[in-house]
């Protein structure tokens, strides 16, 4: 299949995925778009929102439209790392010999739904660190590769809720996007009621196979991003680094730590997916701006002053976007 066909197929599948998900999920179009962008870019997604907004349903539906193995882990305070990764069990053979045999945990799947991830203790949350970055787990001294593609979709309740453990910064940084799921509008809520309180059940079709997804993920990486667009992404990330020459004033005032390089990677990769999805062959400044909030909001660590004044990372990113010019010549001037 040549590039032109691949691109056409990408657009077709992307549209089909949105259409199928739309059969189940009412509204939340930006959330669905962002989730698909992260999926195509090969990144993990953290969905945050109060209970009952359809986070889990979204992930479940995604599992249904993709021809991938799906696993759901309900995070609870008593959940242990071994419950996720698996453990060595003593097994007795028919001949009476006893051997240790690794029992795979739920993480050994293509699509993981880590439901209410912040209800587990940090110890258990950390069990995902290696899996999310290296796509492998180490258990009983043995490194085991996870099947590709590996995609974690975690949901979490707002951290100020009872019985939650905030995710550590390292864990957060491993998520490609953090999506904030908001309340539905009146029309959306009505549609939700129509779909869920009547007899008709929506059925979704599988749209994308495992191999197809890997192929599309490789295609995405071929999309050209020109130097001045990359430079813009770099300047955006650098502008979040407090106490540096490149920082914008609001970053200096309200941030303890800025975005890691993963933030810049996420901006460009997500930009590429968005460009392809919108029928372009190049990444634009608009693409970068469109994905800046989900890509950076969980990577900025607020300081005490920001917490006290109720400043959110979203507000800081919006300020950064307004202050950093697209044209590098303007910076030099």
């Amino acid at each position, binding site marked *: 299949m*040549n*590039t*032109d066909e691949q*691109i056409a197929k990408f657009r077709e599948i992307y549209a089909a995925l949105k259409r199928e998900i739309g059969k189940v999920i009412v509204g939340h179009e930006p959330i669905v778009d962002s989730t698909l962008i992260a999926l195509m870019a090969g990144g993990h997604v953290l969905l945050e929102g109060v209970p009952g907004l359809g986070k889990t349903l979204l992930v479940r539906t995604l599992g249904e439209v993709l021809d991938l193995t799906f696993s759901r882990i309900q995070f609870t305070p008593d959940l242990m790392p071994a419950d996720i990764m698996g453990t060595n069990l003593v097994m007795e053979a028919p001949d009476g010999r006893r051997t240790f045999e690794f029992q795979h945990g739920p993480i050994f799947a293509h699509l993981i739904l880590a439901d209410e991830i912040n209800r587990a203790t940090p110890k258990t949350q950390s069990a995902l660190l290696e899996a999310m970055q290296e796509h492998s787990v180490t258990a009983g001294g043995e490194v085991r590769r996870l099947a590709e593609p590996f995609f974690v979709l975690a949901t979490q309740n707002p951290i100020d809720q009872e019985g939650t453990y905030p995710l550590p910064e390292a864990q957060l940084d491993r998520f490609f996007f953090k999506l904030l799921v908001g309340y539905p509008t009146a029309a959306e809520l009505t549609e939700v009621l129509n779909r869920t309180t009547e007899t008709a059940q929506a059925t979704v079709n599988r749209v994308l196979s495992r191999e197809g997804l890997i192929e599309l993920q490789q295609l995405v990486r*071929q*999309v*050209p991003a*020109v*130097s*001045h*667009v990359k430079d813009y992404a770099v300047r955006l990330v650098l502008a979040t680094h407090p106490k540096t020459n490149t920082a914008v004033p609001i970053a200096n005032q309200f941030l303890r730590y800025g975005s890691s390089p993963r933030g810049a990677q996420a901006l460009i990769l997500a930009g590429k997916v968005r460009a392809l999805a919108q029928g*372009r*062959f*190049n*990444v*634009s*400044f*608009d*693409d970068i701006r469109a994905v800046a909030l989900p890509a950076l909001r969980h990577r900025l660590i607020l300081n005490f002053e920001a917490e006290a004044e109720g400043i959110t990372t979203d507000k800081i990113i919006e300020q950064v976007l307004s202050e950093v010019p*697209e*044209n590098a*010549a303007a910076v030099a001037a």
Partner: protein
Amino acid sequence: MTGFERLVTRIEHAARRRRLQRAWRAFWTGLVVGACIWLVALLSYKLLPLPMRVLAIGAVLGVAAPLVAAIGGLARRESPQQTAIWLDKQQRLEERVSSAIEVGRDPKYGRWSELLIDDANRHLERLDIRRILPWTLPKSSLWALLVLTIGAALGFVPEYRSASYVQKQRERETVRDTGRALADVTRRDLEKRAPALDATRRAVESVAELGEQLARKPLTKPEALRELAKLTEKVQQQARELGQNAALRALAKKQSDQSDRSEKSDRSDKSDQSDRSDTKTESADGKMKASSDDLEKLKRDLERALQSAEALKKEGAARDKAAQQNLADALNSLSQQAKELGLNISSLSEAIEALKSGEIDQLLKDLAVADRDLEQLAETARALEQMQMQAERVGKDLPEQLQNGQAMAARSTLQKMVNLLKSGNVDPKQLQSVMDEVSRAIKPAGQYGKVADHLKQALQRMQAKDNAAAAQSLADAANELQKLMDQLADAESLEGALSALRRAQAAIGTGKSWSQAGTLGQPGFKPGGRPGRGVGTWADEDGWIEQPPMTGAWDNSGIERPEMSPRGITDRGEAALSEGLTPTKVRGKLSPGGPMPSVTLKGLSLKGSSKVEVQEAIRAAQTDAQSALSHDQVPRAYQGPVRDYFGDLK
């Protein structure tokens, strides 16, 4: 043409147009800046006493600013990539064009670059660069227009200058003009009559140099007067040194007496119309038929015209058309007179033209030139007349010539004698005649230094029949006379330089023009050189130069003595009184606001009620005042107020 080449061509077209438009906008921005600079310069010039060159600099910068800005805009080239980025942003092409330009050159992108180039070309085809970059006037053009309009309006506003500044400028102008005229007159004298002595030449040249210096870099009035006074002192010293030669003094006195006699006889001759034609002067080409008196009259008329022109300038030409017409008539009449006299004064014709075109400054300049030309012509005419008169009254033989101080004629006679003696065939009768003439000439030659010695020696040698030696002695006597004549000519040069210096002092001191200063006269003299009434003559007893001998070096440079300015001591003109001296009619006060002066009254102090009628007393006072005024007992400056005061008494 490949897709990439097509893309680059389109972008280069846009870049070219953008560059031209940048230059266009920069031109207007520069025009705003230039207009602002010009406006600031104009405003500064209107409010502050700045020289005209500020306006010139402002104008140059004002014109240069838009040109420099436009050239700067044209010179700034941008790469296709920069233009592509601009196009993307301007037309919201989402970095399609800039990506295509960058990726199109990189082979690693393979099919992607083709896709990008096609995509970019597709989008660019829809764009019309002319519509994106239309030729319109930028906003700055409105500002430029506004500033230029303000500048133009400000041009009609008269500039503010304080009275003291105007006075200083006028003084500087006077100093410059006077310096120019001084240099001109002195240089002309030098060309006409080169001094024989080095010291004299240096002195006269120093006068010309001072004039040039004043013309080139005008000094302030006190500085200029100080410099002129210093130089006058130097030249006077030079003249005094020359005047210590008794022989020269005697010769000068004789010539002066002879000249006076000639003038008297000339005046008597002038009553005779037939003789008048004999005194007419003819120029080298024989066309000029003007006598010195004609030229003097013409010159006086011209000076009156010059004064009218100056008055016209002060009052404003447009305001007084009648005065302008009068002046035009006067100039035409002058021109006619000059033509009748065979004079061709081109500057006079130019002055008439300048008056017609309303250029008063040019008119003044042309009239000043005409005045100088006439003065030169008058001098030449006088010299020719004098020579003519001298020729008519030359003595009949050597003793008489020496007696009359006719050095030139005496020298000529001596030369003839020398030639006769040298010829060798002198008959005894002729020799006796020569001896006779020489012996009679010894006595009058006694006042001319060594001339008498040489004549005595010649007589002795002739008596000893040594004609050759006698001829040598007579030649020595002729040489001695020549020396005296040279020295006399030098003295005249110095006198001319001194006269020019005094005229310059008068011009600068009174703030009048060079030609007007010529009519002011000497201190103690009325205009025209005649002593004023009630003032004793200050003429030099020796009849040498007019200046009284100095008794020592003095320097008044640091002292402000306006009453001693070269206007003259008694001739104070019609100048207004200073504020403190202005009499006002306030009962019981002689000088309101000032200290009460002590007034000494003659006669007895009478007390009690008056027995005289008031009207009678007033009449008596008016008569006394009139008598005092008519006997010049009241200073001239006070005559007007005194006359008014007593005239108003009722």
